[in-house]
């Protein structure tokens, strides 16, 4: 694959509120939404295909920006609630407008993004500019008429789903029945109807009676792409549980448990931390799921619980560095992962603004860098290599010179095309495969 930049959005300065916290394409790929630490959602729209370059789809431009969440304070618990957007999920399109769910730690909101290109004109008692007319001059009634105007994109909040989570929400996922969605926090998963905000059903609760017995937390959860009764959730212990909502109303009993036996030779103080799963994603086909832990990406076949069918090393060279990564807290970074449109390639992020792609069929992998230099238009991204041995070849970068402050946690892949979105701390890069 030869990726080159089609759009990049570089934040001015280093505001923490600009740090991108989630990236998500809609179902057609025409729109891309990002959420940031400042509670904003920015939506990018792909320009229509240009005539002179037919095979090259247009670049992405800002379509709409709105403040989704505001900082809040929970007076009962004396807790500040950050405005940071943890996740965005698009709803399948239901009419000309677009809908998305965005969530911070506590509150999920449903937003409608719609276009308006007409506005009414003509008042009876005042002029268009607001000056009042002398009512005695009004001798006939005027009905307002719609006239074309410049396109306006509006984002309006449609529903607020609040007060259902005691802990921090880490995932939301829309069900294929298009009627319900789930939201997961550290210890519980709730099921909501998209149209009902005042109640939700608890479907998983792993909170022990005594919090001192707490040994694992829920790290991510997702619905199956086409079986509306199936969802999975991953845990900090490296396991994934698959639940069937048909079996019972409360899914505390999982129907499948995916877990790879630990390799005793690799056991260390950090084993448990690095086995914690930071993201789980079903393949589009629904046959596989992918999990990301600190050092690897694993692909599981839903029909085999005992071990993953594929395991990819993301940055094995960090195994010797776990101690310092623990000290600077990097070991707790939550990397996400994504599938390409036909489930043949997976992608996930790493440090030093590197991101990795694994081609499942050809068993090939590549390390690429998202940076200002690489984002020059038309230039093709060059593979990067990290060297671990003593001797460094040309173009290689040594493990010791990796910048751990530059990390790519969030990436997204266009649902059909080979277009990817990569968020470095507060910059967004969009690359496209050039054939």
């Amino acid at each position, binding site marked *: 694959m030869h990726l080159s930049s089609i759009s990049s959005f570089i934040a001015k300065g280093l505001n923490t509120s600009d740090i991108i916290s989630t990236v998500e394409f809609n179902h057609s790929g025409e729109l891309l939404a990002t959420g940031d630490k400042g509670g904003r959602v920015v939506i990018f729209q792909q320009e229509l295909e240009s005539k002179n370059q037919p095979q090259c789809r247009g670049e992405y431009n800002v379509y709409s920006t709105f403040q989704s969440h505001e900082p809040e304070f929970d007076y009962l618990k004396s807790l500040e609630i950050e405005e940071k957007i943890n996740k965005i999920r698009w709803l399948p399109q239901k009419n000309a407008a677009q809908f998305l769910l965005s969530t911070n730690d506590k509150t999920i909101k449903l937003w409608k993004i719609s276009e308006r290109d007409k506005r009414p004109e003509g008042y009876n008692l005042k002029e268009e500019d607001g000056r009042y007319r002398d009512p*005695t001059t009004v*001798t006939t009634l005027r009905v307002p008429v719609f006239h074309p105007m410049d396109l306006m994109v509006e984002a309006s909040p449609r529903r607020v789903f609040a007060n259902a989570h005691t802990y921090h929400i880490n995932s939301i996922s829309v069900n294929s029945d298009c009627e319900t969605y789930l939201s997961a926090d550290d210890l519980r998963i709730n099921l909501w109807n998209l*149209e009902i905000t005042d109640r939700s059903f608890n479907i998983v609760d792993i909170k022990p009676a005594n919090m001192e017995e707490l040994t694992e937390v829920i790290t991510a959860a997702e619905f199956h792409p086409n079986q*509306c009764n199936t969802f999975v959730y991953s845990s900090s212990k490296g396991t994934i549980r698959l639940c069937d909502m048909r079996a*019972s*109303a409360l899914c505390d009993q999982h129907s499948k448990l995916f877990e790879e036996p630990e390799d005793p030779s690799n056991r260390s103080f950090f084993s448990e931390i690095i086995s914690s799963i930071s993201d789980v994603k079903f393949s589009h086909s629904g046959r596989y799921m992918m999990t990301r832990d600190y050092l690897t990406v694993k692909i599981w076949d839903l029909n085999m619980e005992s071990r993953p069918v594929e395991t990819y090393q993301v940055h094995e060279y960090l195994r010797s560095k776990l101690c310092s990564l623990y000290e600077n807290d990097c070991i707790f970074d939550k990397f996400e992962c994504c599938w390409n449109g036909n489930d043949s390639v997976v992608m996930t992020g790493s440090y030093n603004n590197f991101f990795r792609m694994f081609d499942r069929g050809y068993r090939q992998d590549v390390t690429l860098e998202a940076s200002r230099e690489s984002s020059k238009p038309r230039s093709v991204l060059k593979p990067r290599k990290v060297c671990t041995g003593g001797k460094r070849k040309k173009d290689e970068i040594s493990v010791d010179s990796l910048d751990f402050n530059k990390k790519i946690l969030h990436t997204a892949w266009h649902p059909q095309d080979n277009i990817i979105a990569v968020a470095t701390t507060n910059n967004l890069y969009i690359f496209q495969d050039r054939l």
Partner: protein
Amino acid sequence: MQHKSKMAGADGDDSLYPIAVLIDELRNEDVQLRLNSIKKLSTIALALGVERTRTELLPFLTDTIYDEDEVLLALAEQLGNFTMLVGGPEYVHCLLPPLESLATVEETVVRDKAVESLRKISQEHSPVDLEVHFEPLVKRLASGDWFTSRTSACGLFSVCYPRVSSTVKAEIRQHFRTLCSDDTPMVRRAAASKLGEFAKVLELDYVKSDIISLFTALASDEQDSVRLLAVEACVSIATLLPQEDLETLVMPTLRQAAEDKSWRVRYMVADKFSELQKAVGPEITKNDLVPAFQNLLKDCEAEVRAAAANKVKEFCENLPEDSRETIIMTHILPCVKELVSDTNQHVKSALASVIMGLSTILGKDNTVEHLLPLFLAQLKDECPEVRLNIISNLDCVNEVIGIRQLSQSLLPAIVELAEDAKWRVRLAIIEYMPLLAGQLGVEFFDEKLNTLCMAWLIDHVYAIREAATCNLMKLVEKFGAEWAQNTIVPKVLGMANDPNYLHRMTTLFCINALSEVCGQDITTKQMLPVVLKMSNDQVANVRFNVAKSLQKIGPVLDSNALQTEVKPVLEKLDTDTDMDVKYFAQEAISGKYTTLSIFFLYEVASLGPLHLVILIHFSP
């Protein structure tokens, strides 16, 4: 700003100005004003006349679908009643464009309302217009790009089908078939929920050929949210078919639904069980539904068991008379017995709310032998809701075996609830007291329950004391003034000497509640002296409540007592050192008290010594 001018066109005498305001407010910034304006849309249309309504107002409304849901909802509703305003049935099709755009918005309530209005105006179309204008709209919606329009189409087939030619009928059936196998589950759900309704307007042959295959397909849809809606359709389809076809056409699907892998589908079967039972008739009920019902009562999911438990009485009632008792005794009762000790309290409480109804069906002997032990077990259940449900349905048993049989267990159960640590449980049982009193009779009540009712008057939670006061009033309504005079009035009045001022106030609250039901005689002779005496109470809260009580019982007293006894006391209170006492005395004298301030001050009074501070803010 009163400007009058003659209208050109419609009703010439109307003032132009208010209409102009209404029209302008259709696009006001303030949603409430827009909403008000939309709700007066008929006024606007009337002023504009039919011609301008059609050519100007409706095109404008068609484009206003950007508005808030509540405005769109009101608009969708208004348009259903607009036929005369556009020029009568001849022009009714002009209403289709705005309703069509409303039928595609994302809000279900708005779409449903638009569909409802479309269904309404479809009846006003002539058969020709229906084919020329209405049916094409249904087709457009049915083949729309977005699922919102396709879901709306599902609700429109049944209203135009009976009134169109056979070629169009064939098209409509084809469209419905397509929607039943739509890609999106939302559309399949909409189609499934309208399947029964559509089947009703179809010719029986098509029901058998078309509907049954669609029904079977929807009932085995991969999404359980679609399958569960097919259960509902099952009821209407079964009603339409002749008995001999049910076995082959409906029963295989119904059996499959009752054993579906998804608990939500089984729940739906349990929830619709009575309707299903009526639809399939007695023979199939005996052979098929009885075992199915047994299984639902034993289901592994508590939600299903609870839904089935709720239907126990109705199911048994509707069993064919010749075999009813045998079926209940041999098949249903064993399952019910198990449910009494279910692990889930919702299941037990669902059962408790209907189980008493079985006694009328089974008669005295069976009730005593088989049901009574179950009632008694539920009366001792650990969950208060179960016990409450039993107690609230005692009347059914009373009719069959008389309450004496139960009373031995009933009493401890009631006493336990009456003394429950949770005040909300105590409150719930108080609310059943008047009902119980009616069922148990005055004798039993005096003997066993009266003490409880009086004890609640000195409960430490205000809400309980308040409910107890209200309870006394209802008891007097049941047992009469004479009973009150002998049993409760002396006890209530006795509390006037209680050292606790809160209890003394309870006396006043009771008097407020009882004076009217007890009548003039008791109020004047027994209650009034006590109230008057309390005007010397050392606690200001008691004194100003005396003023309030005097105002409250005033209407019951005769004018002589008012003049000679009440007035001097109020005048004395008017000179009280406490400003609140003064205030209420004045209020009582002038009687100009508003309901709102009663509410506030009543609340304040119950707060005790804090009242002064708060009253400063509330004084008018």
